[in-house]
């Protein structure tokens, strides 16, 4: 096994480098047409959203139904920064920091949502997040300074395939690290049996908070990427329907699985693209799929399973050599 480890490390770093290189070369050289590049960026953004939501709904087993609210906070925050605050000449270089700021704003909002929800046991989170999503939307609709219902525009198109790829990799890496740690096991213990988790010394309230804030952070980052891809956002983009899409991706790909998150985001994004001709009917697909999944395959394709690739070698639940 000792000989396998460096080899695996080279492979991992090799594929990361290759991915980043391809994400830059392929669009740049015109080998991929802009339409395909656009779809790939949506896939990437959705991967981040799904990984983030899976922490809460999959690993921790709580039910957040309003994550689009965090996406909105991240999207508006980052857009305000690039449109009003940061000089255009600097915006390219400031973009990572702008996204982080969007993520932090979302996490701060997450704190407000999580605090009352996790104070007591029970299924408050679903109700609180639902309300939160609706409140965010209506606040944005009533903020004339941010364009109200017409939306906010003027963002430079800073989101590119290499940036999206880099953020997907970073999100994946940090989620993987979290999941394969004491905290990750604690989250899963909460899902399995919260009382027993407490009785095995897991400070459930604290780690629920951690997971929720990390989840909100990455959802906010994805919102920033989304805003600087479309260059236009309005409150309707972050309605309950958007939250539903995220839920579908989690429950399609598989709860409690990184591989499943990537898979769910990919399949769902491509499916929606194929169904674009349906027009408004497209909005039925998400909720319908969600109901069907909940009935027939509640754990999703990869539910609670993981590709070996993502499992760290040391102490991940596999045997020592």
């Amino acid at each position, binding site marked *: 096994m000792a000989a396998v480890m460096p080899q695996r490390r080279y492979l991992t770093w090799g594929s990361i480098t290759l991915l980043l290189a391809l994400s830059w070369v392929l669009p740049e050289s015109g080998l991929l047409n802009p339409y395909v590049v656009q779809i790939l960026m949506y896939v990437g953004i959705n991967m981040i959203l799904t990984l983030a939501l899976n922490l809460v709904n999959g690993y921790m087993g709580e039910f957040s139904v309003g994550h689009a609210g965090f996406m909105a906070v991240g999207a508006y925050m980052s857009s305000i920064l690039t449109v009003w605050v940061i000089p255009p000449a600097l915006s390219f270089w400031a973009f990572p920091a702008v996204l982080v700021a969007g993520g932090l704003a979302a996490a701060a909002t997450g704190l407000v949502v999580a605090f009352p929800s996790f104070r007591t046991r029970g299924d408050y989170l679903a109700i609180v997040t639902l309300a939160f999503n609706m409140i965010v939307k209506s606040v944005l609709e009533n903020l004339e300074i941010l364009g109200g219902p017409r939306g906010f525009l003027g963002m430079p198109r800073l989101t590119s395939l290499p940036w999206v790829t880099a953020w997907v990799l970073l999100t994946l890496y*940090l989620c993987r*690290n*979290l999941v394969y*740690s*004491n*905290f*990750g*096991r*604690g989250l*899963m*213990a909460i*899902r*399995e*049996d919260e*009382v*027993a*988790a*407490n*009785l*095995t*010394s*897991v*400070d*459930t309230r604290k780690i629920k908070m*951690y997971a929720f804030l*990390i989840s909100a952070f990455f959802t906010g980052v994805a919102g920033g990427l989304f805003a600087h891809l479309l260059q236009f956002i309005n409150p309707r983009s972050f309605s309950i329907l958007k939250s539903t899409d995220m839920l579908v991706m989690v429950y399609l790909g598989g709860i409690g699985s990184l591989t499943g998150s990537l898979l769910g985001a990919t399949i769902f994004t491509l499916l929606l693209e194929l169904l674009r001709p349906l027009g408004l009917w497209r909005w039925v697909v998400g909720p319908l799929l969600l109901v069907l999944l909940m009935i027939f395959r509640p754990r999703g394709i990869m539910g*609670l399973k993981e590709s070996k690739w993502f499992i*760290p070698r*040391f*102490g991940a*639940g*596999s*045997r*020592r050599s």
Partner: protein
Amino acid sequence: MAAMLSIEELTHHFDGLCAVADFSLTVEPGELVGLIGPNGAGKTTIFNLITGVFRISQGRIFFEGQDITRWPSYRITAAGIARTFQNIRLFKDLSVLDNVRLGGFARHGYNIWQALLHSRGFRREEQAWLRQAYELLERFNLTRYADTVARHLPYGEQRRVEMARALISGPRLLLLDEPAAGMNDAESQALIQLIRDMQRDFGLTIILIEHQMRVVMDLCQRVKVLDFGMTIASGPPREVQHDPAVLEAYLGKDGALAE
């Protein structure tokens, strides 16, 4: 000498039903105390009160001199009281190894940032606890089940995983809730030996809830007998066994004492 655990006049009601009435108990370090009584007597409720599962409305509990009456469960466990459950409560979809490691949750010495970055300190700590977990698995004859999902384990093995999970938290007081439930004679004989060994090797103080009289006879220096939440007798098991109130409580129900 300071008592390890002292429970003072604990009373607990469930919607009018008095499950525990005016219960007091002092346990000295190194003791093995039995808690017996017919079904529904309030034994498990006492464990739930000690470990913070239920809110205590009347009475107080001290552990090693600290008032833990209002502490949340995770803090009580981290302070050194571990338990097992009458109806096994493993994390069913997690591996046996992860179940055991979870018992050591509070002892992992790294913070969330170190975890997110899988820092050097994180790795060192993870490896140390992995080793610790495997040592316990070895001891409980569970090594080959390390990667098995807990729900797929036979009943007896599940009980042993619970014990390993309790021990890895480094408890000084261990609460065992009917560990011999569903075991035949040979199995409970082995269990008695296992409990003795655990107590010696880990320097434990133990409170044992048990239905099988002979387990209690073999292990406990003294017992408390409960019936309908009330303490009806206490003392060495051999004396208590002949107490008229105890005989009536048991004989009136399932005759567990009438061996």
